[in-house]
């Protein structure tokens, strides 16, 4: 069961849309920074395959400029 955290950079004025879209996703906790244009997310999925799918889904979200993985754990 992979758990991963990412730092997300977004396009100007896209914070609210992006946060809304991220919050719609299951298994994704969202932590927007208060004073910088950065969002942190923590994902939790059942399998590597689902993790991979979620990753690609994240990349497709409108307004996301760049996403970098910070940590990854497997709770199996």
């Amino acid at each position, binding site marked *: 069961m992979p*758990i991963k955290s990412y*730092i997300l950079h977004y396009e100007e004025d896209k914070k609210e849309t992006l946060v809304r879209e991220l919050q719609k996703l299951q298994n994704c906790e969202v*932590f*927007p*920074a208060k*004073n910088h244009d950065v969002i942190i997310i*923590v994902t939790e999925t059942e399998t590597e395959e689902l993790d991979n799918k979620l990753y690609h889904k994240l990349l497709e979200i409108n307004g996301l400029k760049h996403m970098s993985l*910070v*940590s990854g754990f497997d*709770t199996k």
Partner: protein
Amino acid sequence: MAQESIDRRSFIKKMAAAAAMTAAATMFPGIIFASEQLENLPKGANLDWKKGPCRFCGVGCGILVGVDKGKAVAVKGDPNCEVNKGLLCVKGYHQTMCIQAKDRLTHALVKKNGSYVKTPIHEALDIVANKMKETMEKHGKDSVAMYTSGQSTIPEGYVASKLMKGAIGTNNLDCNARLCMASAVAGFLTTFGADEPMGCYEDINYADYFITWGNNMAEMHPVLFSRMLEQKNNRGAKIIDFATRTTRSSMAANKSILFEPQTDLAVANAICYEIINNDWVNKLFVEKHCNFSKGLTNIGYGTEDKFKFKDKPEGINFEEYKKFLEDYTPEKVAKYSKVSVKDIKYLANIYGDPNKKVVSYWCMGMNQHTRGTWINNLVYNIHLLTGKISQPGNGPFSLTGQPSACGTAREVGTFTHKLPKGVVMNEKHRRLAAKIWKVPYENIPSKPTYHATEMFRAVDRGDIKFIWTQVTNPLVSLPKTGRYREGMEKDSCFVVVSDVFPTPTSDVADVILPASWHIEKAGLYGNSERRTQHWDKMVEGPGDTMPDAWMTIEIAKRMGYGELFPYSEENHVEEIYNEYRQFHEGAKHGMAPLEVLKKESGAIWPYVDGKSTQWRFNAEYDPACSNGEEFHFYGKPDGKAVIWQRPYEPAAEFPDQEYPFWLNTGRVIEHWHTGSMTRRIPVLHKAMPHAYVEFHPEDARTLGIRNGEKVKVTSRRGSCTLPASINERGLPTRGQVFVPFFDESLLINDVTLDAFCPISKEPDYKKCAVKVERV
């Protein structure tokens, strides 16, 4: 089993979030994440959120701890707390995770035949009380000592002071705040006759300029720094970082100005020279509210045992002061401070402009200084000459390092010379303490004994034969630790250590007492802005753990002082606070009633007629002002603050041919002081697993040192081998190296020098001479 798996996953998720937050903090100084945990908690979670102050640093952020089935499972910033308005830094969010550390001290340990034996707490307390009593009977009451902390709660500090000074009758009580705030105290007392800042954090909302003096706020006071960044972004307030090393604060500032270590004294005088030379003095303010004085010069550095110094203040006039400043023209000072004439004039211009509001912030850079009292005086001079003080957005502001350096160490008075109100040297103050403590007035000695450094020297010499440390880790935090470790290991001294986790200090103890952690007991702290904050016990501590205050009371009872400590175990915090409040009754330092503190996220003293006083000495805000003028510095008998003539004098030790580098030590955002708590929080430990030695890239190139290579840092006291860090967290100036002190396995304080400010007795951890060599 299923629940265990959920707990483990939730723990790992927290670690993952913290890792990302820590990484983000590396890229964006001062970045803050508001608490989203509430929204993201599992559905059906029914947490009981309990309020309190954060355990780390002197900012005093309000936290809410989510408790589920008796366990602390989440922490978020308290949106109702005026200090942090819901924000927290990475340490704050993860603070409760250390409670679960596997090596938590849960039972008393008594050394028998060289090994520690698990002992019931009441038996261990008997041993401690008997040993303390026996030592006093054999060697006199001044053979025993207590060394406490700016992290002790107000009740903990209060009962320690009452036991040592009131009951036993010795002033052998000092605390680790001597290592971080004593120069600020001495600065306030010599300039204003009253300790602690006159302003409050609300100043951030009004200032046009924030000038930070040797203060890396982005890492040490990140929530306040984020509030400053918000003002920078929203209304164009400017941050000027004046320091000896380029840090995250410098990178986020509008301007970074670097100076040669110790020359801040000269630059401050040069700023005053410019203010006077350009006729920017607020003449009316100075005439009405200020006196001029000078003190002794060439005052020494305290490196020898039993060093004594007493200043001799002497009144001078404005013209004499002006003449003195002629040695500090920007042109003269630029030559040795390495600050350009242009930059000195730039700083003076900001302070001198009557239309700009300026707050000066500082912490260890100015306080841990062999002329710490002087540099505090000199920054006050700048604000007094321009009248920029005690008004919203205008003022000098000394920040504290520990959560109750103000509330406990300074206000309760756990220094050798202090009493809860005033000082032991003052008969009136001793009489008040004796009355409230219900002890004979003669019990309280009138002479201070040992300040922190001298206390551990006395242990080494064999003069102190029993020492009890609480909430502190001196064998990592004292300068020149090597000497004091050997001293504590000697058979001549019986060592008792109360702590939550094992430390290098508990390693040399004869008895280790297991202390309750922050939220496992009720308590009160006092933060940097004179705010007193209360919390209730939130969770049970493990095993035999006990609040430090209650340990002191148990010892006092066993020593025969029971009637002076008539508190109940259940309500001792409340009973002690109510007794303590009597010391500060009145408009100048009135403390808020406990009922108020229980409801609100703290109240700022003087608390008068149900109201906090945000700006002291200003008649518009401070009901204690009584001279009929706009300002009243009532700490001094004539109501006037003092502008001090203080020269530049060199550091106790400076680079030479044999030891060609300055060594500067300090902290990092991930770790709290000696790391005994934060190194047990997995995510913080992983983010910053060990100490390092920072180089300027050109120095590294000259020495042939590459990033990560092992380097031996050696002084005349000792050495420490660490990995090199080049162009990473911070950037020292050429000829300087920087090492953080959080890592007990890489003890840089074996290398530092135990020189101190002769007035405040605070050691200088920022300057000594070292050589470096690749290993």
